[in-house]
């Protein structure tokens, strides 16, 4: 009986799904039957055995590979409907984001991809036309990445630059990135660490703003809902200009941030030249004992804010806590808050805010409603 139990437990251990109690039990049982003790090691050695295919298997694989190569080059092969029948409706697709597709301009949309190993640089070929396996016409298109709410995505670019996208971002970069040019488009918030290449400056398009980067660490916020674009520079140098006014360039130094009001610039019919007070350059306030810059706080999981409007704060909290927050009284939007959220949950965070501002909140499913408190 104990013999059977030992092997049951060893099997669980082999799976990597053994509980602490079971492990103790196993060790006790093995202790009593010392001749079985080495089996644990043996089984871990077993992981190292590799399959050797026999000749028939190898031939089958060769044949298959040849057929596959031919099919990749032959557009007619893509018309096989029996394959579709064979592999679906039970097809294990997960979260096809069809609603996203209607919003984006380019055919290829990607959800969060996490590239842990350094990805060897490869040419980004476009395959926007369906059914054409060997599309060779290269159009000047960008491959786009869209992140889901509540996630952070690390993108490793072909030139070894890295970008961390916050939730609900839309991000894309040009094909042949790092070969002839480096260009990106961003809606949302992202943190950049850009590989230095003076001969090929990186251009980031965020709303109406162009950021030219040489080799640097910076943060950009260009939310569709926010009324401004904000770029904060940590290290290096960036030059900011406007799509509508490219002659006017503003150079940022480390520790500075620039804010540009966006709605005036993009609304059709309005003057496209912003007045001077639409653009502000200020110092990034160093905060806290670790003096982590406010703008990059979200990237390190802490949320810091400095004289942030309630309206803007709510949007950040929506993304951080994955809830909907509704403000019944729009005058509350202009309240300013300074503080930080670290390990607080949504309730604790709201309660902390309540210490300084008179409001009530109520939860209903996934929505929080905020109302002004009568004093």
């Amino acid at each position: 009986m104990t013999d059977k139990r030992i092997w049951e437990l060893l099997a669980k251990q082999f799976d990597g799904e053994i509980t602490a109690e079971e492990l103790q039990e196993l060790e006790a049982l093995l202790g009593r039957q010392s001749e079985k003790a080495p089996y644990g090691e043996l089984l871990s050695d077993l992981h190292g055995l590799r399959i050797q295919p026999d000749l028939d298997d190898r031939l089958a694989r060769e044949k298959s590979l040849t057929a596959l190569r031919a099919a990749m080059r032959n557009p007619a092969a893509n018309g096989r409907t029996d394959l579709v029948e064979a592999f679906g409706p039970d097809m294990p697709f997960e979260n096809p984001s069809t609603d996203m597709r209607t919003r984006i301009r380019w055919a290829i949309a990607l959800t969060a991809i996490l590239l842990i190993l350094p990805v060897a640089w490869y040419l980004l070929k476009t395959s926007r036309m369906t059914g054409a396996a060997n599309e060779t016409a290269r159009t000047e298109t960008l491959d786009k990445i869209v992140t889901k709410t509540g996630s952070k995505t690390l993108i490793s670019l072909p030139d070894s630059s890295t970008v961390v996208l916050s939730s609900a971002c839309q991000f894309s970069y040009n094909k042949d990135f790092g070969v002839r040019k480096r260009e990106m488009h961003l809606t949302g918030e992202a943190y950049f660490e850009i590989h230095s290449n003076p001969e090929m400056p990186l251009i980031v398009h965020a709303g109406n703003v162009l950021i030219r980067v040489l080799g640097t660490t910076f943060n950009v916020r260009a939310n569709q809902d926010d009324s401004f674009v904000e770029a904060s520079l940590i290290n290096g140098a960036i030059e900011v200009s406007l799509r509508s006014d490219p002659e006017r360039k503003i150079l940022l130094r480390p520790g500075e941030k620039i804010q540009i009001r966006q709605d005036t610039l993009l609304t059709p019919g309005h003057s496209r030249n912003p007045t001077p007070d639409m653009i502000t350059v200020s110092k990034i306030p160093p905060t806290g004992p670790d003096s982590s810059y406010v703008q990059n706080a979200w990237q390190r999981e802490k949320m810091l804010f400095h004289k942030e409007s309630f309206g803007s704060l709510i949007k950040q909290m929506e993304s951080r806590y994955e809830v909907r927050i509704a403000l019944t009284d729009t005058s509350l939007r202009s309240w300013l808050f300074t503080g930080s959220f670290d390990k607080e949950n949504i309730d604790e965070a709201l309660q902390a805010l309540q210490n300084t501002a008179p409001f009530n909140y109520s939860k209903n499913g996934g929505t929080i409603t905020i109302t002004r408190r009568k004093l």
Partner: protein
Amino acid sequence: MTNETAYILFTRLSQAADEEALTLLHDRFFYRLYKLALSITGDRGAAEEIANDVFLHLWQRREQLYTVRHPDLYMLKSARNGALCWLRAQRPKASRIEIHEDDLHDFSLQYASSPEQILISSEMVRHINQVIDQLAPKCKLIFLLVKESNLKYKEVAQLLDISIKTVEAQMSIALKRISLSVPLVLAHH
């Protein structure tokens, strides 16, 4: 192949229609899919075609592949579905086609040792191969899926539509038999 690498290859395939990525996937996964299809159908020709079709399917559906979170499981499920489809074509009157544990077919498996091993010599590997070869088809298939495809017992249960207890029981049989076939030198214990 680690799960990460398969994931990256899927991304390359999806993002860039990268033919090399598909070739690498084929290189690493063909045998696994082939063996699975073989054990379900019992027909070599069918198994080859099914395994091949999985890759063709990946190519055809490459643009959607970015949504797949578990590429290995995805490919194995595709092969499984393809095999079940083939069975359905063979038995058109059957109302439900599922994997019958007792219908699983035999296939051969040969292992070779690798440098990381301390206790298992190449001599012992021969013993091990014999033992594995003599396992019942269901047991052998489960062992293959766990060992080669790096699936968790839970995933194997999902793939074969059996209970996780069955998987655990079969694995304990397989592991016991394999271990007992290996004469252990207990000098350092």
